[in-house]
C-alpha cells in the first residue's frame, strides 16, 4: 500500500518538477572551427519555432521544452542536432563547415587589415589555399604561386633596382623607373626580411590583392599589388592536433649542353684563323708585356712555329684538343644532383579561452654546385581571451639560416670560356689554370711569388662565403570589444633581421694568392721582397641589420540589422625601418691561432704584373638608412539585402622620403567598389547561372622608390683659391616629390553554373600609371644648374583580362576537376621625356630591360630589317628601302630618324607575355589524387643569342651557328649566318651589331610548359575511426616545355641562362 503511494507521490513530484521546468529560455553562441561567429538558423526540432544568430553568432529562444533538440542549419555549415538537456546557457556551439571531400572550401581573404569572404568583396583578390600551395614543393613560399595564381606572372627580366628582385608582376607593370616588387605582407604588416626566411610549411594561405579597391588600403606602396601571407593559427575549442611533414626534393644536374655553344673543333679553327692573321702577335711577341696566358691551342701553334714540337705531334695534339668538351668535365667534376630535405612539426590546439600554434621547421639543401643551405624556423602563436571582450595575441617567428657557397659554375682562361679546356688530366689529376703566362711569372717573380695558378676543383674549399640570416618577428595584438559590433585593435610588431656574411679566402685560395702577388714589392737587385698584402688569408665581413617597427591602432565596426550590414575599419599606422650596414676586410688572417695583420689602405703601390698603381681595397664602410611612414586609413562597406554592396577606402601616407609639400597635402589614395548579387533578385530566373554577381571598382594606389629623396643633396670641398670650405648642391630638393599613382578600373563577373559544376570569375581591368618617376625638362629659373630633374612626370597605361574557371567535369566516385587560368595583359608608355623615348633606339636591345618608348610596351623589341646575305656572305639590311651593307649608316639612322618611319628598322612586339595562364587538371579516385599543371605564355618575342665575331675573337664566346656560317658563294641561299671576317674588315663591329640586332635573331617566345605533376595518396584518413592520418605525395617539377614556337630548342624563359633542372619530390604527412 505504501509502495503505490510512494510511487504515485514520486510521480506526482516528478510531474510537478516537470511542470515547473518543462519550458525554459535558452541561449548560445554558434561559432566555426576558428571561433568566428557563424550565421545560422536555429530551429526547435519538430516545431516551427526558429531564430537566427546575430552578428556575434548569438541566439536566444524562449519558452521551449527542456528536452528539445535544436537543429542548427546554415549555408556553409553541416547541420547539427543539439540537445538542450535542460540547460539554459548552451555555451559555445562549434559547427563544422559542410565541406565534402573534393569540394572547395571558401578560404577567407586576408588584406592585412581585415579578413573577409572573397564573395563579399568588390575588389579583386585571389586566395590561394593551403591545398593549392602544397601542390608545389620547395623552400620558397612565393615560388608556389607560380602557375596557380590568376594575373600573377614570374618574369626573367633584369633590373638593377633592389626593390625589383622578386621578379613577380601582378597584372603587368604599373611603373617605369620605380620599384617593381609587389609588397609582401606577413599576417598584418609589411615583411621587411628576406622572403627565403618564411617557411612554406608555416603558411595557411596567401591572398593576392590585384586591383585598386584591394590595394589602395596600402596607399603609397600598393601600386604593384600586394601579396598577403597568412600563417597557421590555432583555433578555439579545438583538440590538440599534431602535424608532421617531411619532404625530400631531388634535382637533376642542369643541362649544360642546352646553350648553343661553338664546338671545340670550330673554336680551334677560329684560333688558327686568328693566329694566322696575327691577332695574337702582340701577346706572343710581347708576352713579357702582355703577360696573359696562352690557350692550349695557341701554345701549340707557338711551339710548332718555334720548332719545339714536330708536325706529327702538333697534329696529334690539336686533334686531341678538338676532341675535348669542357662541359663534360663540368658535369663530372663540378655538378652533382641537388637534394633538399624539409621537416616540419606543427602542434595546434585551443580551449575556450586560449588557442595556440607551435611549429618547428628544418630545411637542408645541398645544391648542384655543392653549395649548402640550412634553415631553422620556429613559429609560436598564442591567443588568450581573459575576458569575453578582450583578446590578446602573441606571435613570434624566428628564422636562422646558414648558406655556404660551392663550386664555380664554369671556368675561364684569360676570361675566355675555352670549350676544350680540361679540368682533370688523363691520370685524373686536377689541371691548374694559369692566371698569367708562366714565362712571365717565372721571370719577374724571381721565384719569390706564390703559385699563381687557379685550381677550379678545389678552390671552393679555400674560398667560402658563409651567409647567416637571423630574423625575429614578434608581435603583440590586443583586441577589445568596446560595444556590440565595435572593437579596437592595437598591434605592435618588431622585426630584426641580421644578415651576416663572411668570405674567408685562406692562403691556399686563388683570391688570396692573387692579391698577395699583385701587391708584392720585389727589389730586383737585392731580391728581397715586401708584402703589402700580408702573406696569409683574407676575411671579408658584411653585416646588414634591418630593424622594423610597426604600430597600428584600428577601430572595427561591424553591425547587422534588418537587411543592412555595415562594416567599417579605420586606423592609424606608424612604421620605422632602420637599415644598418657595415663591411670590412681583414688581411693576414690565420684562423688557428686567430691572428690578423694591419694593412695600408691609403697609399698606392705598384702592382704586378702590369705595374699599375693600386691601393689595397677593403677599408671599413658603414651605411645607415631610415624609412619612416605615418599613415591613416579607413575602409567601409555596406551591404543591403545581401544583394547590393558598396565599399570604399581611403589612405593617406606621409614618409620621410616624400617632399614636405606632399606630406603636408591632404591627398589621399582612395577607391570605391560596387557589387550586385544579381541572382538574388526576384526577377532573376536564369537556371543556367543560378549564381551571378557583378562587381566593379575604381581607385588609386601608389608606388614609392625609397632610394629617391625630396631633400637637396650636397657635396663638400675646399675652394682652392680661398681655402674656404664650400658646399655644392648636386641634387635639387623637390618638395613635391610624391609617390607614383596607379589608377585601376576593375569590372568583374562571378558566376556559378547549375550544381556548381562550373564556377568562374571574369575580370576586365584598365590601369593608368601617372606621376611616374622620370627625367623631365623643368623651369630652371629655380636652379639653373641642370636642365632636367627627376620628377613625377612619366605615364603608362595597361589593360587586361583575368579569367579563372573551375569545372567539375566528373564528380562521382572518380573525380576530374579542371581549373583554367587565362590572363591577358598589355601595357604601353604614354608619357616620357627623353630622346630615346621619342626615337626608340632602346628597343634595339634584347627586351630584358624596360626601355620606355611612347606608344610601345614597357618591355619591347625592335630590330633591323633583314635583307639576307650577299653573295660574299655579308649581312644586309635596308637603307632607304634598298638592301645595304652600310651598317654604320643603318645604325646611325636610328639616331636621326628614330624607329618610326625608318625603313631600316621594324618594330616587332612585346618582350613580355601578353597572354599567359595555366590549366590544372585534378583527378581523384578513392584515396589517390593527382594534379597536372600545364602553363602557357603567348604573344611575345625574345632575342636569341647570335654569333658575333667581335665577341668570339675577344671574349671567346660563340654559338653553334659558326658551323653553318656562310663559307662559299651560294651558301647565302641556305644560311643566314654571316661569313667570318677579320677585324680589319670594313665596319667590322657595326657588321656584328647589325647582325646581332637583326630581325632574323628575334624569335617568337610563345610556349606551353608542363609546370608540375603532383600525386597524393591518402594512406589513412584521420577521423572518428582512427586518430592518425597519413598521406604520401610525390611531385615532379621543371618538367620542361611541351610546345614552343621557336624551332631552335630555346626555352624562352631562359634565353641566356640555364633552365632549372627537372626535380622530383617525395613527401609524407602525418596528422594525429
Amino acid at each position: 500500500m505504501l509502495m503505490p503511494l510512494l510511487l504515485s507521490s514520486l510521480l506526482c513530484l516528478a510531474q510537478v518538477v516537470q511542470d515547473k521546468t518543462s519550458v525554459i529560455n535558452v541561449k548560445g553562441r554558434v561559432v566555426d572551427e576558428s571561433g568566428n561567429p557563424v550565421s545560422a538558423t536555429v530551429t526547435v526540432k519538430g516545431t516551427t519555432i526558429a531564430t537566427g544568430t546575430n552578428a556575434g553568432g548569438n541566439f536566444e529562444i524562449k519558452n521551449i521544452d527542456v528536452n528539445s533538440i535544436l537543429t542548427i542549419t546554415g549555408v556553409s555549415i553541416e547541420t547539427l542536432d543539439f540537445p538542450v538537456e535542460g540547460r539554459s546557457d548552451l555555451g559555445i556551439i562549434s559547427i563544422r563547415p559542410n565541406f565534402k571531400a573534393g569540394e572547395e572550401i571558401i578560404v577567407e581573404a586576408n588584406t592585412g587589415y581585415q579578413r573577409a569572404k572573397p564573395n563579399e568583396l568588390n575588389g579583386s583578390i585571389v586566395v590561394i589555399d593551403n591545398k593549392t600551395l602544397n601542390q608545389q614543393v620547395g623552400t620558397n613560399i612565393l615560388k608556389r604561386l607560380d602557375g596557380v595564381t590568376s594575373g600573377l606572372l614570374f618574369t626573367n627580366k633584369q633590373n638593377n633596382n633592389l626593390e625589383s628582385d622578386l621578379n613577380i608582376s601582378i597584372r603587368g607593370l604599373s611603373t617605369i623607373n620605380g620599384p617593381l616588387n609587389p609588397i609582401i605582407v606577413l599576417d598584418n604588416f609589411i615583411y621587411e626580411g628576406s622572403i627565403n626566411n618564411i617557411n612554406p610549411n608555416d603558411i595557411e594561405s596567401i591572398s593576392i590583392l590585384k586591383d585598386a579597391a584591394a590595394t589602395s588600403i596600402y596607399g603609397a606602396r600598393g601600386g604593384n599589388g600586394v601579396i598577403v601571407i597568412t600563417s597557421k593559427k590555432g583555433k578555439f575549442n579545438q583538440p590538440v592536433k599534431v602535424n608532421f611533414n617531411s619532404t625530400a626534393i631531388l634535382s637533376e644536374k642542369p643541362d649544360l649542353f642546352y646553350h648553343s655553344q661553338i664546338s671545340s673543333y670550330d673554336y680551334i679553327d677560329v684560333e688558327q684563323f686568328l693566329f694566322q692573321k696575327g691577332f695574337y702577335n702582340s701577346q706572343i711577341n710581347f708576352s713579357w708585356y702582355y703577360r696573359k696566358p696562352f690557350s692550349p691551342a695557341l701554345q701549340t701553334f707557338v711551339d710548332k712555329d718555334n720548332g719545339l714540337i714536330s708536325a706529327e705531334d702538333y697534329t696529334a695534339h690539336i686533334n686531341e684538343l678538338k676532341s675535348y668538351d669542357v662541359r663534360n668535365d663540368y658535369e663530372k667534376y663540378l655538378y652533382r644532383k641537388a637534394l633538399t630535405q624539409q621537416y616540419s612539426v606543427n602542434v595546434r590546439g585551443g580551449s575556450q579561452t586560449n588557442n595556440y600554434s607551435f611549429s618547428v621547421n628544418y630545411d637542408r639543401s645541398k645544391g648542384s654546385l655543392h653549395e649548402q643551405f640550412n634553415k631553422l624556423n620556429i613559429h609560436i602563436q598564442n591567443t588568450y581571451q581573459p575576458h569575453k571582450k578582450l583578446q590578446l595575441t602573441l606571435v613570434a617567428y624566428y628564422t636562422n639560416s646558414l648558406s655556404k657557397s660551392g663550386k664555380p659554375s664554369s671556368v675561364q682562361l684569360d676570361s675566355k670560356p675555352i670549350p676544350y679546356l680540361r679540368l682533370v688530366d688523363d691520370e685524373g689529376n686536377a689541371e691548374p689554370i694559369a692566371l698569367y703566362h708562366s714565362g712571365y711569372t717565372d721571370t719577374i717573380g724571381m721565384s719569390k711569388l706564390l703559385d699563381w695558378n687557379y685550381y677550379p676543383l678545389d678552390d671552393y674549399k679555400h674560398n667560402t662565403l658563409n651567409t647567416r640570416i637571423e630574423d625575429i618577428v614578434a608581435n603583440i595584438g590586443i583586441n577589445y570589444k568596446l560595444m556590440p559590433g565595435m572593437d579596437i585593435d592595437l598591434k605592435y610588431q618588431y622585426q630584426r633581421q641580421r644578415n651576416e656574411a663572411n668570405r674567408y679566402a685562406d692562403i691556399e685560395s686563388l683570391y688570396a694568392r692573387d692579391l698577395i702577388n699583385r701587391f708584392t714589392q720585389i727589389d730586383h737587385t737585392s731580391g728581397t721582397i715586401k708584402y703589402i698584402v700580408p702573406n696569409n688569408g683574407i676575411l671579408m665581413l658584411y653585416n646588414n641589420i634591418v630593424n622594423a617597427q610597426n604600430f597600428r591602432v584600428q577601430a572595427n565596426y561591424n553591425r547587422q540589422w534588418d537587411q543592412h550590414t555595415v562594416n567599417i575599419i579605420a586606423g592609424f599606422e606608424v612604421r620605422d625601418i632602420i637599415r644598418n650596414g657595415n663591411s670590412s676586410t681583414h688581411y693576414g688572417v690565420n684562423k688557428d691561432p686567430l691572428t690578423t695583420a694591419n694593412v695600408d689602405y691609403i697609399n698606392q703601390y705598384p702592382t704586378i704584373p702590369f705595374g699599375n698603381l693600386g691601393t689595397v681595397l677593403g677599408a671599413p664602410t658603414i651605411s645607415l638608412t631610415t624609412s619612416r611612414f605615418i599613415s591613416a586609413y579607413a575602409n567601409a562597406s555596406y551591404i543591403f539585402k545581401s544583394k547590393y554592396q558598396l565599399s570604399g577606402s581611403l589612405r593617406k601616407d606621409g614618409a620621410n622620403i616624400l617632399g614636405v609639400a606632399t606630406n603636408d597635402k591632404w591627398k589621399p589614395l582612395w577607391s570605391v567598389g560596387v557589387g550586385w548579387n544579381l541572382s538574388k533578385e526576384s526577377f532573376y530566373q536564369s537556371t543556367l547561372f543560378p549564381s551571378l554577381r557583378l562587381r566593379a571598382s575604381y581607385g588609386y594606389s601608389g608606388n614609392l622608390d625609397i632610394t629617391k629623396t625630396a631633400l637637396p643633396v650636397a657635396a663638400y670641398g675646399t675652394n682652392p683659391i680661398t681655402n674656404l670650405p664650400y658646399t655644392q648642391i648636386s641634387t635639387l630638393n623637390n618638395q613635391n616629390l610624391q609617390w607614383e599613382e596607379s589608377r585601376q578600373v576593375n569590372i568583374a563577373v562571378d558566376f556559378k553554373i547549375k550544381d556548381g559544376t562550373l564556377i568562374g570569375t571574369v575580370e576586365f581591368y584598365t590601369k593608368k600609371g601617372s606621376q611616374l618617376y622620370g627625367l623631365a625638362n623643368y623651369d630652371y629659373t629655380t636652379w639653373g644648374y641642370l636642365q632636367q630633374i627627376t620628377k613625377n612626370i612619366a605615364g603608362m597605361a595597361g589593360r587586361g583580362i583575368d579569367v579563372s574557371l573551375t569545372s567539375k567535369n566528373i564528380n562521382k566516385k572518380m573525380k576530374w576537376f579542371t581549373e583554367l587560368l587565362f590572363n591577358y595583359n598589355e601595357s604601353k608608355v604614354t608619357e616620357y621625356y627623353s630622346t630615346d623615348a621619342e626615337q626608340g633606339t632602346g628597343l634595339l636591345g634584347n627586351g630584358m630591360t624596360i626601355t620606355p618608348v611612347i606608344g610601345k610596351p614597357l618591355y619591347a623589341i625592335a630590330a633591323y630589317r633583314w635583307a639576307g646575305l650577299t653573295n660574299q656572305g655579308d649581312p644586309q639590311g635596308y637603307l632607304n628601302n634598298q638592301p645595304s651593307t652600310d651598317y654604320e649608316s643603318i645604325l646611325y639612322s636610328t639616331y636621326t630618324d628614330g624607329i618610326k618611319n625608318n625603313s631600316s628598322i621594324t618594330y616587332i612586339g612585346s618582350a613580355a607575355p601578353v597572354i599567359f595562364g595555366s590549366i590544372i587538371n585534378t583527378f581523384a579516385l578513392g584515396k589517390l589524387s593527382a594534379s597536372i599543371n600545364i602553363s602557357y605564355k603567348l604573344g611575345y618575342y625574345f632575342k636569341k643569342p647570335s654569333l658575333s665575331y667581335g665577341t668570339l675573337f675577344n671574349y671567346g664566346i660563340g654559338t653553334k651557328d659558326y658551323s653553318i656560317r656562310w663559307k662559299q658563294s651560294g651558301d647565302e641561299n641556305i644560311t643566314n649566318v654571316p661569313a667570318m671576317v677579320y677585324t680589319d674588315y670594313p665596319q667590322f663591329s657595326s657588321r656584328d651589331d647589325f647582325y646581332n640586332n637583326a630581325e632574323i635573331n628575334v624569335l617568337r617566345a610563345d610556349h606551353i610548359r608542363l609546370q608540375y605533376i603532383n600525386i597524393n595518396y591518402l594512406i589513412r584518413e584521420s577521423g572518428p575511426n582512427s586518430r592518425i592520418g597519413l598521406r604520401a605525395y610525390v611531385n615532379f617539377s621543371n618538367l620542361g616545355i611541351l610546345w614552343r614556337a621557336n624551332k631552335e630548342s630555346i626555352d624562352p624563359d631562359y634565353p641566356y641562362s640555364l633552365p632549372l633542372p627537372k626535380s622530383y619530390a617525395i613527401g609524407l604527412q602525418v596528422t594525429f
Partner: protein
Amino acid sequence: MQIAHKHYKTLGIIIVISTTLFTSMSCKKFLAEKPDASLTVPKTLTELEGLFNDAERMNFNLTPSMGESSADDYFLLQETYDALPTQWQQVYSWSLKEYRFQNDWSANYIPVYNANFALESLSKIQRTASNERQWDKVKGYSLFFRAYSFLNLVWIFSKAYDSSTASTDLGIVLRLGADFNQPSHRSSVEQTYHQIIKDTKEAANYLPEMSSNVLLPSKAACYGLLSRTYLSTRQYDSAYKYSDLCIQLTDDILDYNTIPVTDDIPFPRLDNPETIFYSEMNTFNTNHYSFSGFVDSTLIRLYNANDLRLTAFFSPQNNLHRFKGAYTANSILLFTGLANDEIFLIRAECSARKNMISGAMNDLNTLMKKRWNNDLPYLDFIAIDREHAITQILAERRKELLMRGIRWSDIKRLNKEGREIIPKRLINGNEISLPSNNSRYALPIPADIISITGMPQN
C-alpha cells in the same frame, strides 16, 4: 566585472586618443629624419656659408654675356661672323629669337637658388649671441648674391628703367624660394628694382664693412651695388649717396704706372686693390671675347697716347686691337665685378648731374691720374658747365669700363635721356643699326623657359 569593464572602455578610449594626438603632433618631426645617413643636406650655418664659398657657381662663369655681345664696344670681321653658329650671328645682329639651356638665364639663377635655399634654412636657425656673426654673414650673403643676379638679369631681359612705364614694363622672374614647383611669373621692372634695392639695403645691415676676400660681398659691395642699381634707374641722387658711402669705405685706385702694362696679363686677379666684389662674365656668348672680336676702332681712337690704358687694355694686331685688360689675370675671361674705378665714375657722374661740378671733376681726376703715364705731366680735366662735365665723364666711363658687362645697360640708360647711342654692325657689306629705345634692347628669354612656364616673351 562591470567596473572592470568600464575601465577597459576608458582605457581603450584613452589609448586611441593619446595615440592619435601623439602621432599627429610628432608627425613632422618623425618624418624629418634623413632617409640615408650619407646624404648631406646643408643645414648648419657652416654648411650654408659654404654655399657662398662655391666660387665656381657664385662668382666665375656667371654674369650675362649676351649684353656685351649685343653692345657696341667690339666688332667682328666678316670671316669670323661667317664661321659663327646661327645663334651667335643672331645675337650680333640683334635678331636672336630662340635659344635654350645653358645661357645667361640659367647661370644667374644658380646663385639665386643658393641664396633662397640659405634663406629658407636660416629661418629655421635661431640667431643667438654665439652664432650671430655667422648667421648675419649667411643672411647678408644670401640677400646680396640674389640681388646681384637679379640686377644682372634685369639689365639683359628687360627694357631700361623708365619711371613712367616701369610698373607695367616686364621685369624678370623674382624667385624668392627654393621650391621649383612654384610657377615662375614675370614681375614688373618696378618690382624687380624694388626687390634688388630692398635686398641690398638689408644685406648691408648684416655684412662687415670689408670682406676677407673679394669673392664674398661686404657692406662696401652692397653700397657699390646700390649705386650701380640707382644709376641704371637714373635716380642719380641715390646713386650719388651710395657711391659716396662706398668710397668712404674703400677708395684705393690701382696706379697703372705700377703694373706691367705691356704684359699680356697686366692685372692681378683677386688682390687688385680696386676690386670690391669679384665676378666673371659667363662664356655662353663669346662674340666679344678677345679670341673672336676686335675692339671698336672709334673707341680706340678716343684714348690719348699717354693714357696707360691703351697699352694695358689692348694688344694691337695689324691695326686692330684685341682686349686684354680684364681684372681677371686671364687673357680671355672678363671681369664684371664691382671696383672702385666704377664707383668713382658713378660719383663723378652723379655729382655732375647734381651740378656739383668741382666734386665731379675731382673724382674724375683722382681716377685719371692713376691712368696717366706719370713720366709725363698730367693735365686736370676741367669742365665749363654741367653738360661738359657729364660728357667728359661719360666718355671716360666708356673707356674705363669696357668689357665689364656694363655697356649694354649704359646704352639703354643713356638713350632714355636722348643721347642717341646707336650701335651699328657691318654684315655682308650692309650696315644695320639698333635704334634707341627699341624693344630689342630687352633680349629674348630662353625658349625652353617660355614654353615650360608660358610667360610672355620680350
